[in-house]
């Protein structure tokens, strides 16, 4: 929804604040530059590189968790790392989303049998989108971000519908 196309010059546009925020949030999903392992090369480095250029979807990296909307868990999380992942998640401001990228973040991947490895990052933080692959291609990560955008708008619509139902 591009606002300038909908509304001409000197015109008024009525929109629910939720919808406006929703529109803004979906178009600027800034992820935290937090690469754990191999997936970081594909999902963070090549994603921001010239071929895939996630910036055109408003997806860009921030170095600090306090400025980030999305955490891409890109790699194996072990017991030493788990506390840090949780702490970083807690430091992110609301609203926040988590993408579990790759087999390791989903289930433990090829290292799931090692007792030191956490069996999926959803044991530590709530996950919104799971991306399979080892490592997933940058296209998969891109698709994951589209799924997350859809999910955000669905949540907004769901909230609006619920409130509408209540007021009636």
């Amino acid at each position, binding site marked *: 929804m591009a606002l300038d196309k909908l509304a001409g010059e000197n015109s008024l546009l009525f929109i629910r604040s939720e919808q406006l925020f929703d529109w803004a949030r979906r178009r600027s999903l800034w992820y935290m530059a937090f690469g754990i392992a191999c997936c970081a090369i594909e999902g963070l480095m090549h994603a921001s590189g010239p071929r895939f250029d996630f910036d055109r979807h408003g997806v860009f990296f921030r170095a600090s968790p306090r400025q980030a909307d999305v955490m891409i868990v890109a790699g194996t999380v072990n*017991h*030493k790392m788990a506390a840090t992942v949780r702490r970083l998640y807690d430091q992110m401001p609301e609203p926040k989303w988590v993408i579990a990228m790759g087999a390791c973040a989903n*289930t*433990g991947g090829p290292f*799931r*049998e*090692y*007792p*030191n490895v956490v*069996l*999926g990052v959803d044991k530590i933080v709530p996950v919104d989108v799971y991306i399979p692959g080892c490592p997933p291609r940058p296209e998969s990560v891109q698709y994951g971000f589209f799924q997350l955008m859809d999910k955000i708008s669905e949540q907004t619509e769901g909230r609006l519908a619920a409130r509408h139902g209540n007021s009636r």
Partner: protein
Amino acid sequence: MRPDTATVDRFLSHAGVSDVEIDSASMLGVVCRVAPAQTKQMLCALKGEGDGFDFLVDLFGIDTGEAVDVVYHLRSFSRDEEIYVKVALPYGADLASVWEIHPAALMPERECAEMFGLTLSGHPNPKHLLLTKGSRPALLKSERIRTAEEVRDR
């Protein structure tokens, strides 16, 4: 590549190290086996004075089922030769640090000690390197990995 036993003998006799079992038939190369108490003396002897095995390629352990074999893989750039020193330590024994002879041993020693449940002595920073404090020594053969059932019902 592979030193002849005469060279090794010369290094050892020069420093007065005895009771060394030298196996030069191994596929690995020349492997010297010494008692734990003699490790430092042995490494010093092999290091020599500028012409010996002064480069520590690697340090690691092998759980043989009866003891932990600590392997020192040494190289000499000037001679272009490599040699292995093996020390059998009982489980839970003390791994004496050799960082004064080979500073390269600092981190591998920490790893070896935690992975095989050895204690580390004479080390400036004898903390765990990879695992968190209180973890089980993972590389011992007695340590199990997760079974397929445990992984499935995660």
